[in-house]
């Protein structure tokens, strides 16, 4: 079930280089011309940079785990996992999120690698969607945030339960059967550094030990994943910061009256804010005018679909993945949050 990767290496484009250098120079000039003193520019830069600074180490951790999986985990292990029936793979992968304490930025490259190495796509997706919600740090921060409201246990249980259901449902509904149907081929991947392929440049390997070759492959995969995911973290962070700078959050305040509208409003806000799942509970608990069910919708929908992730998903998966994910995540989260609201009364 391994994905066929396409080796694409376009020649250097001088015009593109010039354009990108011009962008960087323009940014510097804009700053020096005093635009940075405009309050909105300061807000944007601070939020944008803080999102990237917070996310990049997690992206690196994800890339590191992904590179270890690619280079050091034997292929036979994945073949054994792939032979397990889906009803076993799916919940096991989703529950694996408990043991993977990184945010959503780190889980995407790991899930991609697991799927490309043979894990069932549905199981890989379930792991990717569950780990940012189920991991112990996120559940602990949810507990701390809601302990002052006296509903810490209920919110943690609700978040973990609904997050698990959503991950299983989305994995089952949109995972498909083959990795090639789900994953977008990545330019450059599968070149001579791909361990499972025979080396295309034997001279390169002739005088090197096995451990040197593996270490070289490991660093190449690590850097490739980091730079590939990193660009979308930057792009998504910029969009999220722009929306935070331009759109007043108070516009959703008037939509809190009914649970359905309230939940939909907070899901939309979660998409815009693109918060780290380890911090979002502290923001969710501040929406005091919204019912608890709506706050739960914010906590479950945000780590699965947000502006920053939309770019990461777009780069990792095939077309319309985000739309298909929203088509599953929205009704499941809405129904779960409404049930939670009723149960809490």
């Amino acid at each position, binding site marked *: 079930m391994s994905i066929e990767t396409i080796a694409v*290496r376009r*020649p*250097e484009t001088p015009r*593109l*280089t010039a354009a*990108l250098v011009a962008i*960087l120079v323009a*940014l*510097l000039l804009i*700053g020096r011309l005093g635009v*940075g*003193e405009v*309050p909105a520019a*300061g*807000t944007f*830069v601070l*939020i*944008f940079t*803080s999102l990237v*600074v*917070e996310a990049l180490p997690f992206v*690196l951790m994800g890339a*590191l785990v992904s590179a270890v999986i690619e280079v050091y985990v034997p292929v036979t292990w994945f073949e054994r996992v792939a032979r397990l029936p889906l009803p076993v793979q799916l919940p096991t992968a989703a529950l694996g999120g408990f043991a993977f304490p990184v945010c959503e930025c780190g889980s995407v490259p790991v899930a991609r690698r697991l799927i490309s190495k043979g894990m069932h796509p549905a199981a890989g997706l379930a792991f990717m969607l569950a780990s940012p919600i189920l991991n112990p740090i996120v559940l602990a921060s949810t507990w701390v945030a809601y*302990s*002052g409201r006296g509903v810490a246990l209920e919110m943690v249980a609700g978040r973990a339960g609904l997050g698990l259901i959503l991950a299983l449902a989305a994995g089952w509904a949109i995972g498909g059967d083959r990795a090639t149907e789900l994953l977008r081929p990545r330019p*450059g991947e599968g070149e001579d550094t791909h361990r499972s392929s025979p080396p295309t*440049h034997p*001279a*390169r*390997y*002739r*005088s*090197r030990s096995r451990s*040197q070759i593996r*270490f*070289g492959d490991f*660093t*190449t995969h*690590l850097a490739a994943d*980091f*730079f*590939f995911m*990193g660009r979308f973290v*930057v*792009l998504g962070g910029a969009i999220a910061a722009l929306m*935070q700078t*331009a759109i*007043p959050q108070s516009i959703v305040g*008037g939509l809190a009256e009914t649970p359905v509208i309230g939940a939909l409003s907070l899901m939309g806000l979660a998409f815009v*804010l693109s*918060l*780290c799942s*380890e*911090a*979002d509970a*502290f*923001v969710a608990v501040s*929406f*005091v*005018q919204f019912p608890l069910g709506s706050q739960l919708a914010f906590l479950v929908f945000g780590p699965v679909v947000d502006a920053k992730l939309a770019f990461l998903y777009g780069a990792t998966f095939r077309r319309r993945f985000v739309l298909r994910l929203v088509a599953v995540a929205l009704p499941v989260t809405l129904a779960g949050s409404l049930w939670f609201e009723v149960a809490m009364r």
Partner: protein
Amino acid sequence: MSNSTLARAIVLTLWSAFFAYLWISDEMVRFLGPRTYWVVPFGCLTLGTAALAHVIALRTERATGGGRDRGMSRSDLVGITALLIPIVAVIAVPQAELGAQAVSRKATGAGATAALIAPPVREEGRPPNFIDVHYANESTEYAESLGIGDGTPLDLTGFVSATNGPGEFTLTRFYVSCCAADAIPYSVSVVGEGSAYPDNTWLRVNGVLQSEGERLRLVAGAVEEVEQPDNPYLY
């Protein structure tokens, strides 16, 4: 050594150096909250290690005759440039901060200029802060447990986020949990001695709390302009 791998190693080194700068200069407090300070030394070390490993692998490859001089692909170029943008943005706007504009965008609720987090645990001898006053406005029980009410002396340092009339302004400070994206503004209405202060002016205000309707406001006895504190957020 290929151009793209060399460029990648340079960008990884730049990011490691940027994290080192945030760490050593304590500038990290402007971007992150206490719960994620650890990300900065962690990022510095891991990104630096990744850069070093990259260079070692390439040197090994070159020493064993396996290195090839390859051009940089468009994909490489875009990725590398994109990761430079945040660093360039910080250099271009070195004094970026959350101020009155951010308060106007981040405030939530019907007219509320602050939001709730878990109530702080009462600590003997700790003077009331922005969060205490906010909670006291929301909960009589909390106000009574902390002994906050009419006549409570208060000493707050924050920035002006709005001017409501002659000598009346809103003093605010952000609470940050993980990063500036999740910042929550906590505000207190101040009745001052008549001076007008522009938005984003940092002030230290001494005074006493006074009820106005159902809310508490701070009647200032002394207002002093101060430098922005090293850590501009509540923690």
